[in-house]
């Protein structure tokens, strides 16, 4: 085992939590991520591995909120798989084993900052952030959108008041600032 200590996307040793009257914004440091892209001509094989893992293949604009792995559609024949860091520390390697030459797997954990926005004001906050129709989205809807000029994914969780936001990790501070100001603005 190595002895290097990771930091969260916001640079702390512990994930940050900001509490407002109507929402709680939590930095989620517990996810590992890897992308899966079907090899040309191997789409069916790739789909069946995904279906076996998640229970279904996420279609465009969709996530499958499976446990422990969750997957959402990123682009044509491309998905992002996430899982808890504790149970899947080497997710990309695991996926390479599972998919073999049916898909290209890319480690993505370090590329993203993840925030969970939860509470009765979640939709109001999201309306100040992005053009994605969060109010109309259902549990398991996942869209790429723009928040403060940053390309982000927004995913409606199983709880009706929960939105997961994945944004570029290097801009975690900017994204967090945008989320906090939108929360203050709608409090």
């Amino acid at each position, binding site marked *: *085992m190595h002895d290097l200590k990771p930091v969260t996307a916001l*640079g702390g040793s512990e994930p940050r939590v900001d509490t407002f009257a109507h929402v709680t914004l939590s930095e989620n440091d517990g996810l590992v991520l890897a992308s899966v892209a079907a*090899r040309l001509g191997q789409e069916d094989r790739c789909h069946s591995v995904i279906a076996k893992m998640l229970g279904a293949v996420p279609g465009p604009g969709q996530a499958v909120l499976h446990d422990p792995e969750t997957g959402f559609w990123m682009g044509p024949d491309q998905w992002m798989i996430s899982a808890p860091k504790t149970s899947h520390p080497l997710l990309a390697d695991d996926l390479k084993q599972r998919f073999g030459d049916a898909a*290209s797997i*890319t480690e993505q*954990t370090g590329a993203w900052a993840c925030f969970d926005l939860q509470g009765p004001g979640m939709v109001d906050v999201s309306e100040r952030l992005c053009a994605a129709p969060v109010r109309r989205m259902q549990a398991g809807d996942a869209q790429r959108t723009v928040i403060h*000029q940053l390309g982000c994914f927004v995913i409606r969780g199983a709880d009706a008041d929960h939105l997961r936001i994945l944004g570029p990790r*290097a801009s975690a501070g900017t994204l967090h600032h945008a989320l906090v100001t939108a929360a203050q603005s709608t409090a």
Partner: protein
Amino acid sequence: MTQRNRLASGGQINRDETLKFMFDGKSYQGHAGDTLASALLANGVRLMGRSFKYHRPRGVLTAGSEEPNALVELRGGSRQEPNTRATTAELYHGLLAKSQNRLGSLRFDLLSINDRLSNFLTAGFYYKTFMWPAAFWEKLYEPVIRHAAGLGSLSLKDDPDVYDKGFLHCDLLIIGAGPAGLAAALTAGRAGADVIIADEDFRMGGRLNSETFALGDNSGADWAAATVAELQSLSNVRVMPRTTIIGAFDHGIYGAVERISDHLKTPQEGKPRQILWRIYTRQTILAGGATERPIAFENNDRPGIMLASALRTYANRFAVAADRRVAIFTNNDDGHRTASDLHAKGVKISAVVDVRADAPRSLDYEVLHGEVIDTKGRLGLTFAEVRLADGSTRTLECGALGLSGGWNPNVHLTCHQRGRPTWNDDLAAFVPGSDLPAGMTVAGAANGDMSTTGALQGGRNAALSVLDLDNAPLDLPAAEDAPVVIKPFWYVEGCSRAWLDQQNDVTVKDVKLSHQEGFRSVEHLKRYTTLGMATDQGKTSNMGGLAIMAELAGKSIPEVGTTIFRPPYTPTAIGAFGGRHRGQEFHPTRLTPSHKWATEQGAEFVEVGNWLRAQWFPRAGEKTWRESVDREVLATRASVGVCDVTTLGKVDVQGTDAADFLNKIYCNGFAKLAVGKTRYGLMLREDGIAMDDGTAARLAEDHFVVTTTTANALPVYRHMEFVRQCLFPDMDVQLISTTEAWAQYAVAGPNSRRVLEKIVDQDISNDAFPFMACANITVCGGLRARLFRISFSGELAYEIAVPTEYGDALMRRIMQAGAEFDITPYGTEALGVMRIEKGHAAGNELNGTTTAQNLGMGRMVSKKKDSIGSTLSEREGLNRDDDLRQVGIKPVNPEKAVPAGAHLMAMGGPVDAAHDQGYVTSACYSPNLGHAIALGFLKNGSERMGERMRLVSPLTNVETEVEIVSAHFIDPEGERLRA
């Protein structure tokens, strides 16, 4: 006396809540529910400002957002906002307002001399007068004009408030909450549709709040309030008062400004002042109502002269009589309503002057057949001169005069996509044309249905139609259904100083002059006279101008046509467009994984794109940046240095055709690159110009990691996707950006291997891991990592990458491991110096004009394969021997600097563009060589080594003698790299 013009009863104001406010330093009182204009009128204040050009005393003309005249500076200090319409400014406790556009006091404006000089200040005055001599413009005319003209003044301080942006989605957007909008919203809302109803007013109801008509058993205002309450109770309806739809954009996108805090003294903590919403809707019902227009006659701009409908609004909604003695001048039946309403409230009606012989009569007041031809009253109306039909004249004593020239449907939003309104003779007005924005339906007065019943039915029917509903059970209350009876009448014969556009001081005379001088297009009229070009965009003035122009040209009004309506519908603060994107938040900031550590070291940072990169790391005692940079360069070349290079773009390229794909995007070959090796790649545009460069590391047969320059990461990725999806769609290749997934550090210098050997878990001896090797490895006892033996500095060097979350820890570990070798962190400046010393091209050389040949890499362009740019790079013009070649440049006198951007000229030859031989792209001081060095491009440069040239920079007055040398200043044989 306080509020001497406040009526004893009525109005939608809260008399229990008294609000104090200040206007021009004097204290007044009003009530909750007042606007600044209604409160001033209640206090008997008619004079509210001075006009733009002639500094004429002006009062309020309207009771709405179309107001041209009553513009004030609202609030003070950094919140001071000029040109705020008193008619829309909601009164709040402690409101502070100042009249504007005056020199001295409002009552004795020193610039009112302009009014006496009016013969010289007609249309085109500026164009004609200040033409000559040219030099006078900047020095004399402009400063004087700037001082005298303009409306309000800016605080010149930062706006302390914040503005939000937001996004809303709906099935049906209803614009305007008058009778038509409310009926539409109720129909759609009860049917369960996803509805947004927006109105610019703080009190919804539109004209229902301004009229005395009954709706069924209720007053119009009560019906509106009850309807709004029901709509607010529906979860599928979003009710947005204080929200102006400012533009109708393509495909059902609307811009809206919601004023969250404008009615408060200061916004609540954390709350925005305004929100700029982008509304996405499937269908839209425009129920924006209509705007009354005035009639032009001599001196029609005195305070106290206003629209008849505005007088009615002030009386009915705000319980304010603009004056206790009022006259009306009208060409249609609606004007008479003002007289009867005011009479009922005990206001003395001096007379109603109607241009029609068959005007309705009244038992309560006199109705005269004639025209108002002039007025009196220096700072406010005192008398109106009337010319009766029989030619006799009469003088009416009055402090307010209501004008009713008919109503213009508010067609603006129907025209934002180049729709053209059509003329309706019955209304003597333009109504929406057939070319509406897709998804838009117009209802109510905006559609020319001027009666309350027509509006209610129009709104309901529009909602039924756009939602495709079967007869929803909405019973409409019984309401007035009077027809429009009007005789078109625009201006009084013989008038000249009769104002059309009160905000820009454009008169009937100006329009006539414009015609006389040959301006025939309505767009030319607008620009020559400035009619309709003020912040009110001519809402009350354009029609008058058009009518006069039509008459002079012998055309009909529709033949003349309207000018083009453009967004925004009403003036919008720039701050609202900026939203949160200002100051530090103007664009996102990207931080490198070592940012926190670098901050602790006291690094200076530089913005590279959105990235903040350490530029250098100053140490105690270093007085200039050069001292720090020189030290970093020397220490790296002498022992070892470390630099965060995470910002370079990284793209994961996988698939069985990955190597073929790289062969397409790079001009040089990649098919034969062995697994575990890295190669430099040059990417061309299709026209043969260099696009970007970087390295591709082959981690497996079907897996490469490609790097791009920091600045081009995004466009290069886009280009790669274009090549993959559009040009070679059957290649088995998958792309994904991994720029931020890995923290990557360059460890460079003769001791770099010794430092890394303490960190990585594998053998990295020169044999095991030679120059240009790459591998997936582990570090620190098992953390997955990547190692590349590549060098930008020219030294023995590696780039080591770990998952980003471990970047901070790895940097600290490298520093710890390197302590015994005095490892030196270096920033982008030292990085730049070392690459110039080594002769590596970078962004300054790959500047969008240079080819592989220019860069001295012409032979890299493989002719054995097809790659992007390979065919066009063979063009004759790009392959001339005398073309630019990258060279090194050094000063003959080592004390001299070599400025970047300077041009190379032959010794003794002329210094001009025709004799330009080349230019410097990158320059620095080389601490290793002890003098300045530079890279640049020189015609036929590779054949001119040793030649002496003049380096000139006429702009900075620099001329230096330089020698052309190899671009490889350090270790030209590359021995250090392979050590």
